[in-house]
């Protein structure tokens, strides 16, 4: 059976849902094997086994995180060559895509990003031009490199657990030479909210927030959602640039997208178009966002959002 190599980068104490999704997809394509960077903690090792990882490759060098991209791509290339994998799966984060990019050149392999589904024959499904087309694409090379968006499949454990033993992979001598070095790392304060690109629900605010993101944040917290923003809102400095969705920010495709005070100009629509359900709140009945909303409210978001937040809390308390 063909081997499918999943790259799992520095998970810490537990595997992320996106990694479990990659392992689940890998099993549908062949035999899952893992290239693992970072300290392998017991729970993570058990998780890799539960999801059926048949082999586990770890880098001979422990300092890959001290450099940008290049050395990780070199490790992954070495793991791909050692394992003989014909498909490599990585997450669709900015860093995941860049590692995939360099890996593609090293292996002479076609790279497809923003993948949302993979057929057993390797055909990848994605959407392009800001969600206006759905396409299928295939690598024409012997090895394919795919980066897969979060929330693409429900993670499922393997029928039979495995107990893969780590195999050390040597890196080329020049793997770190000429790579940009990370000289300082500032961890950002954890918000306690899910990460925007992985969230099942996103509550996003725009120009209509008028400098006050409180109602959006409160509703997001009541729903266990991530907070997003239009470019107008991040450019105004009302919320961090990390929250920006759309053309120059993050692409999201959650189950539910609640848009508040966003008019729905074409680039903003692009950011929400692939959500399963769209709710829009805007005081301007002519806003284009109402053309694509499954449920639209013409009204004052400073009334509607807090009322919804209270109602959710009330219902939760009643259970």
């Amino acid at each position, binding site marked *: 059976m063909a081997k499918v190599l999943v790259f799992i980068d520095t998970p810490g104490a537990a595997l992320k849902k996106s990694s479990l999704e990659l392992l689940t997809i890998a099993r549908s394509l062949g035999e899952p094997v893992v290239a693992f960077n970072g300290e392998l903690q017991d729970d993570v090792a058990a998780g890799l086994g539960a999801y059926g990882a048949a082999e586990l490759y770890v880098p001979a060098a422990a300092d890959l995180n001290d450099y*940008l*991209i*290049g050395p990780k791509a070199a490790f992954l290339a070495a793991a791909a060559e050692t394992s003989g994998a014909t498909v490599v799966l990585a997450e669709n*984060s900015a860093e995941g895509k*860049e*590692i*995939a*990019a*360099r890996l*593609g*050149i090293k292996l*002479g392999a*076609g*790279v*497809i*990003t923003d993948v949302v589904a993979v057929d057993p024959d390797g*055909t990848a499904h994605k959407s*392009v*031009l*800001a969600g206006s*087309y759905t*396409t*299928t*694409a295939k690598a*024409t*090379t012997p090895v394919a490199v795919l980066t897969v968006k979060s929330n693409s499949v429900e993670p499922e454990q393997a029928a039979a657990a495995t107990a893969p033993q780590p195999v050390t992979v040597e890196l080329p001598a020049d793997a770190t030479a000429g*790579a*940009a*070095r990370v*000289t*300082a*790392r500032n961890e*950002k304060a954890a918000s306690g909210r899910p*990460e*925007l690109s992985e969230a099942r629900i996103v509550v996003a605010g725009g120009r209509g927030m008028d400098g006050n993101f409180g109602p959006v944040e409160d509703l997001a917290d009541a729903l266990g959602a991530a907070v997003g923003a239009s470019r107008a809102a991040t450019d105004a400095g009302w919320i961090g640039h990390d929250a920006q969705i759309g*053309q*120059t920010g993050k692409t999201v495709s959650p*189950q539910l997208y609640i848009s508040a005070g966003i008019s729905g100009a*074409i680039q903003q629509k692009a950011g929400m*178009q692939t959500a399963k*359900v769209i*709710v829009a*709140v805007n005081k301007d009945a002519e806003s284009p966002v*109402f*053309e*694509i*909303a*499954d*449920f*639209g*409210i*013409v*009204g*004052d978001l400073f009334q*509607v959002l*807090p*009322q*919804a937040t209270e*109602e959710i809390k009330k*219902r939760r308390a009643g259970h």
Partner: protein
Amino acid sequence: MKIIVLVKHVPDAQFDRHLSGGDNTTDRSESILSELDEYALEAALQLIEARGGEAAGNKVIALSMGPAGAVNAVKKSLQIGATEGVHLSDDALAGSDAAATSLALAAAIRHLGTDVPADLVLTGMASTDGETSLVPAQLAERLGLPQVTFASSLELDGGKLTARRDGDSHADTVEATLPALVSVTDQINEPRYPNFKGIMAAKKKTITTLSLADIGVDASSVGLAGSWTAVETAEVRPPRTAGTIITDEGDAGIQLVEFLAAQKLL
């Protein structure tokens, strides 16, 4: 100092964009200089201006690969302030994926560095059409340059480059030595607009057109033939239709929650 800035002629994101033809390549009518490339151009101009500008022998070369119309991205870059323009154009390039694009651009960059190698290759964080972000990393790999991508700040001190890179959970300070490849985000600066003086000055600047033969690239290694990925099918996503629209009469928040409950989203 010699800086090569990659600029791309892309369909204007203000309008609906389309795929065309049997190859499902992007329809490039109504195209403009990619907005995200203006940040790279501005970063380059600031770096040379801090070093005495063109008078002190500094150069910013705007390089665009694409069909005839792509020369407009180069012209706009010259109006904004680039000192020279280069248009890599060859029919065989049509339909190139990221791997083929990076192969051709790497060859063009080597060609432009034959006499004096470039100190920096600057790009935007992504194109606003393909949006894969693959090309900067693939260029760094092909050229063997240190890669500093998604830079939200950039400083040069002699041959050393320092940049800030923002991730989801952390912000890194990174260092590299020149020559290097840097992609910049839309947070790095406020791009300038071309002014009248710039528009007039651009008319006197040279635009060099390069073909694949000029840069020593075989036609079979680029375009659809040389790409490592192929789009097999493309379907227009059915347009979303409006659902229920209500006007708030005091209970819209509660109706919203009822809608979410009915959709099993609570």
